[in-house]
């Protein structure tokens, strides 16, 4: 059962922000409700007003451009099925296909997922490798903020009380980039998630098998998803045909960098070890894809996208 609240259905961002500004702590932003209504049922959140953002023009759109803009109220399912997402960054659609279960994907939104900042978020981890920025609107105007700054910690973001998350903007990888996303866990939400991207040197015509630029993000194990600079550096210049030594070094560097906590998903030591294992595995998969091979190997309790 839910405690009573008043439902507001603004039809513009200005109207929504004015409501949020006027209602203060009594209001919560509502879209799919897959996170919000759960916490309200548990009594952990008790807003007396919900501000539904699904009727705000543009919030449900995916727009192409130099960067791909996904509206805050776009559902995971829409991302999964979007031809535009598939064309610009197929892995985003593939990861959306594995968020939670089909009922959550049908209703839950990209903006809700990011703004809730649950540490076990698939999207936040993947989006770090796409240099995601968030568009925030408020009565004071618009601002854009890197995802890394937006997510401050578990369930904590840089969003002000009267601000709305309008969209997330992704910078698709350059051509000759090969990526993999691997998540592991026996619960509904992943215990750990790894996103890796390997960009090769050369051009499609000239070829080239050296890693020019590597991106690695690890999420779910710590308080927030993190890009792994040292692990990325360990891969730069490595040959895609012989990535094993660099992948091991990157896995070890990532394990050192993460900040895992003991919880029901596992001990901190266990998670640290698993980070090394899954960074290595994700890199092997991305490297195989760079060679035109889709590895058949699968791992227990893991999803590969």
């Amino acid at each position, binding site marked *: 059962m839910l405690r009573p*609240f008043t439902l507001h259905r603004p039809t513009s961002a200005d109207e929504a922000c004015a409501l949020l500004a006027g209602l203060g702590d009594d209001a919560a932003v509502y879209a799919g409700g897959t996170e919000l209504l759960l916490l309200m049922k548990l009594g952990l959140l008790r807003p007396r007003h919900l501000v539904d953002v699904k009727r705000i023009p543009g919030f449900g759109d995916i727009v192409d451009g130099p960067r791909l803009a996904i509206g805050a109220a776009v559902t995971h399912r829409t991302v999964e099925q979007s031809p535009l997402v598939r064309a610009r960054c197929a892995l985003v659609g593939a990861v959306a296909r594995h968020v939670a279960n089909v009922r959550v994907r049908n209703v839950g939104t990209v903006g809700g997922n990011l703004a809730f900042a649950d540490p076990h978020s698939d999207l936040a981890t993947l989006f770090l490798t796409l240099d995601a920025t968030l568009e925030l609107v408020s009565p004071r105007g618009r601002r854009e903020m890197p995802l890394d700054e937006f997510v401050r910690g578990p369930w904590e973001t840089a969003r002000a009380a009267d601000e709305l998350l309008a969209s997330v903007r992704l910078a698709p990888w350059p051509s000759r980039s090969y990526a993999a996303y691997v998540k592991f866990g026996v619960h*509904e939400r992943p215990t750990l998630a790894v996103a890796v991207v390997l960009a090769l040197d050369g051009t499609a015509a000239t070829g080239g098998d050296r890693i020019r630029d590597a991106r690695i993000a690890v999420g779910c194990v710590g308080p927030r998803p993190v890009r792994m600079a040292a692990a990325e550096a360990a891969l730069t210049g490595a040959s895609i045909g012989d990535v094993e030594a660099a992948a091991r070094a990157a896995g070890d560097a990532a394990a050192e960098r993460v900040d895992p906590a003991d919880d029901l998903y596992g001990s901190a030591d266990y998670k640290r070890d698993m980070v090394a294992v899954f960074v290595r595995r994700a890199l092997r998969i991305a490297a195989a894809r760079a060679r035109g091979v889709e590895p058949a190997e699968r791992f227990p309790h893991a999803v590969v996208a």
Partner: protein
Amino acid sequence: MKIRPVVNGRLRELEVEAHALLLDVLRDGLDLKGAKRSCDTQVCGACTVLVDGLAVSACTYLAVETDGRAVLTVEGLADGETLHPLQRAFVEAGAVQCGFCTSGMLLTARAMLAENARPSRGEVLHYLRGSLCRCTGYRKIVDAVLAAAENGPAAGNGQ
């Protein structure tokens, strides 16, 4: 708030509170008991109903969201006394044990077959992820869905 959903093919005019959950409106308001309250956290699938053809967890879905939309519960799946092809396939495959998950399994499968008339076993397993059978009788459930798909495109239709 006044809402006008079409529930199992019939237009309803309902007065509901903003905080009313769809599951409570269906079970207590309309006496449609097919959708079950179980985990109450969108993990198990026992409360699954279709809204405009999409599977949702009625336990965590505001009833007001169904205004002007079509809601399908398991009670609307059969055509009178004639079972829906999925229901028939479940009976024939022995895909029902205690029956608690069955309504959710049927509706989730119905939503999948409307999108993908000939799914592979892997695709069925992917779509049913998050639909839990407490008797663990998954093999026959998946067999039944595949059999219904083989028997023709009607398995994705109904209401």
